[in-house]
């Protein structure tokens, strides 16, 4: 591989990365600001609902909040101010958790989401690919056919239903697992076994939901890939030459089928920063998805922009990393 060619390739991909991030974040800014939900009105509503409210006082409160939240100024002025803050990693104060900075609010949720989704994505990927590869190779196995039926029947079930079913089974019928929250109540976060085990136990059902839902896609695609490869000349030749079936499976078939799956994994991992909205809602899990929903409902565009910008950068970064690693692992990709 010529190094100059690689650097030209790298520069092009970097340009593409910057363009994707810029366009994505700009679109997110516009969509968030065109939302019909006004954060000032949401706050006024929270502060005045249920209470004894003097209309003159409400008008005064509305004006004070507008000045306090800094929502004055044209859209373009706000856009310029937004970019000047973003490059410093500052999304300003959250309007629904005023005056706490958006990054502080996100910082509390991000570890939960990244931990849960990374683990669940990897588990689903490993199990799905392993079972898919076995099912594609040992096409006549009854057990694997049964596994295939189970996995494919899980695939179309909505995440909400899967999560709810697990809640009923493990929270009510056989109540052995917690169905809500990220850890035990009144436990200080630390690296103690008590806390870590509590996080694992609380994350079991959300993770299981994500694995059950995510398994099918990996299983089906891997089984299709393997089913094609097993009829390739080099595999038939190896079988005729008496190579051990385990070696054919692991070295000739599964390995070749893995390449697109690795790409898929990297892209999926890029998505973990956006949160798993439905699972987090069902299990009351303190992650980014729940944060995003709260932000949207409160018209907190600072928070929505913070969460979406991080998600956009994460996905673009994942694509970028795949792009620059691909030529190194697959010589068929041309440079320059």
């Amino acid at each position, binding site marked *: 591989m010529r190094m100059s060619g690689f650097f030209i390739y790298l520069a092009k991909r970097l340009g593409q990365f910057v363009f994707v991030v810029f366009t994505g974040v700009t679109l997110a800014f516009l969509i968030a600001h065109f939302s019909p939900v006004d954060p000032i009105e949401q706050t006024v509503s929270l502060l005045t609902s249920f209470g004894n409210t003097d209309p*003159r006082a409400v008008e005064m*409160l509305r004006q004070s909040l507008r*000045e306090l939240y800094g929502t004055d100024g044209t859209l373009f002025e706000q856009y310029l101010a937004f970019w000047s803050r973003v490059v410093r990693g500052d999304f300003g104060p959250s309007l629904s958790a005023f005056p706490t900075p958006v990054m502080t609010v996100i910082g509390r949720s991000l570890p939960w989401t990244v931990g849960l989704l990374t683990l669940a994505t990897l588990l689903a990927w490993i199990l799905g690919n*392993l079972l898919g590869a076995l099912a594609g190779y040992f096409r006549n196995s009854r057990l694997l056919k049964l596994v295939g039926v189970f996995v494919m029947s899980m695939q179309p079930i909505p995440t909400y239903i899967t999560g709810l079913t697990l*809640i009923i089974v493990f929270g009510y019928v056989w109540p052995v697992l917690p169905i809500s929250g990220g850890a035990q*109540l009144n436990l*200080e*976060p630390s690296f103690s076994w008590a806390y870590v085990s509590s996080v694992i136990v609380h994350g079991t059902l959300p993770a299981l939901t994500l694995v059950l839902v995510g398994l099918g896609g990996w299983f089906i695609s891997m089984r299709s890939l393997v089913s094609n490869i097993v009829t390739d000349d080099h595999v038939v030749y190896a079988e005729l030459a008496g190579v051990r079936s385990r070696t054919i499976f692991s070295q000739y078939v599964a390995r070749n089928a893995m390449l697109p799956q690795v790409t898929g994994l990297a892209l999926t991992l890029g998505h973990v920063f956006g949160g798993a909205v439905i699972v987090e809602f069902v299990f009351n899990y303190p992650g980014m998805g729940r944060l995003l929903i709260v932000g949207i409902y409160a018209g907190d565009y600072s928070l929505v922009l913070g969460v979406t910008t991080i998600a956009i950068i994460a996905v673009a970064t994942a694509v970028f990393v795949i792009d620059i690693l691909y030529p190194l692992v697959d010589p068929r990709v041309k440079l320059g």
Partner: protein
Amino acid sequence: MKLLRTIAMAAVASLLALPAFAQDFIAGIPRNEALIIQGTPAQNADWFNVWAPGGGGAANVNGLQQLSTDTFWFINPEGGPDAWQNALASEPPIYNEDFTQMTVKLREGIFWSDGVEFTADDVVYTVQTLIDHPGMNWSAAFTVNVASMESPDRNTVVFNLKAPNSRFHTLFTVRWNAAWIMPKHVFEKVEDPLAFNNNPPVSLGAYALHSYDKGGNWTIWKLRDDWQRTSIGMDWGQPQVKYVVYRTAGNPEARVIEQRNHNLDVINDIAPEGMFSIMKDNPTAAAWLPNFPFAHPDPTLPSVLFNTKKPPFDNKDVRWALALLIDIRAVALGSYRGAANLSALATPPTGSAPDDYFVPMQDWLANFELDTGTRKVKPYNPNVSAELANMVRGQWGDQIPTDPEQLKRLFGFGWWKQDVQAATELLQKAGFTKQGNRWMKPDGSPFTIRVQVEGDAIPTLARAGTAIAQQWSQAGIDAKVDVAGPTNGQRLSTGDFETAIYWTIETWGGHPDLSFFLDSYHSEFIKPVGETQPPRNLQRWEDPRLDEIIERNRLIAFDSPEVVELGKDFLKLAVEEMPMIPLMAYNKFAPFDTTYWTNYPSAENPYSASGPNWSNIRYMVVSLKPSGTAAQ
């Protein structure tokens, strides 16, 4: 294949090992010392400054305003002879003759949780600080009202008002919340009280902050060792609950399961189906009513709101016609599965209102006549509660009483008869015509109505809107439901709706004075459609007779007998003009678990409100008694 078997065996082994991972529900706190209440997810869990808008409201309702703050007075929304409670004040407010001055006598011997004594200085400092910092909660209300303050001694505060205001004390009177008193000794050291998170908060209530989750999932409050030195401790004796845990509990299904697993003593609100499930299958469950309909009626009145600035809803004949096309029994069944407390009057049928208004006005309602243009009809049906009871008796059997008077207290005193013929005559009187089965407006275009609902956030009202739209459609009106989601509030306040299922009437519940919502109905506050209307009067209903009632009410004392008479005048006017069609009380399904605690408030013993977000719940917390169940 060996690998596959290994995976399968590992999965089975993991399942069997699950019980070994079971943990105590709360680490380090015996379950039988803790009351667990459904809380709200808090984005800003570090924030305990109840006087600044931070926290988005959630921080305030996770125990802060229920357990640690205090102010002069509370009103129990359930009514009764003891509805008025002196808290930090030792007696009710003292006004001068023209209501330009209010004097408050403070209780002695109250201390903040850090040992500093509460005095009049705290009160004066609170009001002045709020006035000095626009944007703080209650700042605007004090700026509008307060000219100056004096504290002639450490237990007396005198407020001099900018203009006569016989309801100034209501700023310090808790229904859901009120202006809470700040700890001067804490806030005077702070440079910017708007940016101060007040963490940990110094408490004036019987409980102080014990611990909280930075992720906003739970907050735990602990009984103060010196609980006797608080207003609630002085009046209500020693609390038995040592810890109060506010925790988020997930989706409605999870909440039902959590209560049945005894991990959630108080649920805030669930759909009727969840309530029925708990009450049928959970032997340790309790509710406001022991039998169907179980619900607690909040002093809030869901109604069909009309945008009276948009034709044809500016015409009272049209509004009345739409009311008479409704079969309220079907709406009650469709929205609340029959568990509804109906109201024909524009005030919720809860607290003291049945005795103040509903019982005395039955004759007037029964004799009320409506001119349809061709004849006069008496639209009131006083027997609707019995009809509704008969419809649900098949499902609930003996749980439904037969005494008509009791039925009225459970299902409502009456409502309007569905009268399609009278509605037809009213629409014709308004110039409408019928082509086939379709109603056409006076200008010849089809009569279409958008019925705005919020959606899943308040499912019972969304169902009510759907039922009403169906009934109007059956009568020949092109009615469609419009789900507004999070834009609901803004669309209502800017007048971007035709009709909506929501509430613009909330009352004290425990007091007949209607100024709580009525004062803001004055025409001086009405904004043109497109501009933001202040809360309440989202109908933009304007009537000189209404202004006259409000102006008269402003000039009489809160406890004057004339308050009830003016209230009746308003209710009669609202019936005649029908600016909104009152439907029913907001029935809240808030089940309790009695495994660890008993003596929850109920219709039989209504010593407190039952909603966990209401500050009045502090009276419930200190009144609970241990059931004797050992900790798990």
